[in-house]
């Protein structure tokens, strides 16, 4: 092989390598991460795509770290952790779950909700789980023990609409702010919400919020 051929081959290989890396990366990351972090995050994004996990939350987590001038290792660790949580959420919620549901599920797992509760939620609720999962996360972050929070949301899951679940969460937060213990607030409010849901079902002509 002549020198010219060797140089041409090397150039072709480098081009293929660069274009391969660029295809794996999100262009928004190119100028926000250093090359080492970019490569590590790119590999995680590739893995997520292969596993058919949503990639956008991972990109945003890396951008968040870059915006906050986090150490490269910390950015990579955060993206890796989120990818793991998305995977667990997908396993718990099922492959048919939407990206929004998986993202909300990952947040719930981060808040210490058990994967089994996510699975139960999927089984009991036919509508989208995004709001229910967000309410579950909010309750746990607000101080309601994870098992109590899960029990409350699961009790509402089958029949309550999204707006009723959101109202329930707000009511619990308000009670906590007024001095109620989180677990007691969740228990009392879930009873009230179940009563409302039952009455609404029994009296469909009762005026409701638009």
């Amino acid at each position: 092989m002549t020198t010219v051929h060797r140089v041409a081959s090397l150039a072709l290989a480098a081009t293929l390598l660069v274009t391969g890396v660029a295809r794996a990366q999100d262009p928004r990351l190119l100028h926000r991460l250093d090359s080492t972090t970019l490569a590590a995050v790119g590999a995680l994004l590739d893995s997520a795509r292969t596993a058919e996990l949503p990639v956008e939350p991972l990109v945003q987590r890396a951008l968040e770290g870059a915006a906050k001038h986090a150490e490269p290792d910390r950015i990579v660790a955060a993206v890796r952790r989120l990818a793991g949580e998305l995977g667990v959420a997908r396993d718990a919620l099922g492959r048919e779950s939407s990206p929004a549901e998986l993202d909300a599920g990952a947040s719930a797992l981060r808040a210490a909700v058990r994967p089994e509760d996510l699975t139960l939620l999927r089984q009991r609720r036919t509508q989208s789980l995004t709001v229910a999962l967000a309410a579950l996360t909010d309750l746990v972050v607000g101080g309601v023990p994870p098992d109590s929070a899960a029990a409350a949301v699961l009790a509402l899951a089958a029949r309550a609409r999204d707006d009723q679940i959101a109202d329930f969460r707000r009511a619990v937060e308000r009670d906590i702010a007024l001095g109620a213990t989180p677990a007691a607030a969740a228990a009392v409010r879930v009873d009230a919400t179940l009563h409302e849901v039952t009455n609404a079902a029994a009296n469909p002509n009762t005026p409701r919020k638009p």
Partner: protein
Amino acid sequence: MNPGRPAWAVTAVVACSTAATPRLVAQVKAAVDLGVSNVHYDGFLPSTAAAVSPSFRWASPRALVVANGSYLRFASGNRSLQANMSGSFFSAPLGRWTGELSALAGASQYRDFTGFSHALLTGRIHLDGARTGAWIGGTSGTTSFVNAQRPVAALLAGMWRRQFTATWLTNASYTRVGDSAYTDVEGATRAVRGRFTFDGSLGARVWSRGGGHGVYGEASGSYAVGPWIALVLAGGRYPTDPTRGSVAGRYLTLSVRLTALPGRAAPPPLILPRPAIHHSSPSSDDPPAVSAELQDDGGFVIHAAARTVEIEGDFTDWQPLLLSERDPAGWVLPLPLAAGTYRFSIRIDGGEWFVPAGVTKVPDEFGPGTVGLLTVP
């Protein structure tokens, strides 16, 4: 609202539409008030008046320009015309300290013969925290009545506090205008709840030489009928202002305010330069009294009395984005949000990033504070 006072005295409303110039990397707002007032100046008989009051405001994290005017037509046929313009420049923050230099000029005329004008320069030093702040400063300038000029000097001090959805303000000032001198002590508050905005103030001229005495107070409430129209009811009593040439009086005003929305001109989202240091929200149990609200129509609103409100999060690729000012204390995200869960933070007037009340706070993986979690169904 206050027909005897300059500038912010607005009565009836018709919206004018000074559309935002996209090249301005800031918030632009223009409005016109049209209304009817019942006015009772001290020493005069009560009178009704109609008014047209345009206003314009341009704000960025480092500068603020405000211009406003008021045209009053009294039942007698006499008229009053007032106009003011001010510009403020804010220094880069040095820790919690910020400097402000502002210039104000204005003029007023009653019928065809009585004319005031003034030009003032004010310097202030601000010490600002997330929930409280204070300032101290001084003013120097001149005011003229017809052709007679008088020097103006003032010392100012005040403090503010945000609590829940209200901002509380107290201030004291000592003012000399020629041979006249007076000391005012005043408290004010602004509260926003949904479509309602309330402004109130209560003050007293505790000492005076030629400037009158007494207690004064004003209140106004506005209800946003839509994104660009609001009903305003205002009333109260205000003191003599020798600088601007207004006579003490009482008033009650009902008006309609039409506001031009920069968003209608569809300017591109405004991205501001990122500062060198990013602060995540302190993990305090005592968060700043700025609240967030996801509305039924999907709009995301930050309620805050501020010059500027910026947001960054999963929906801005973590680049600061200036929110659009919907009303005096309502700031709207100029982007539609798809269903999903988003992390975000906001900052007020270029200060520190934090999470507003009304949304879930979760630990920040990249710092000691928290980030907000917003779920759009």
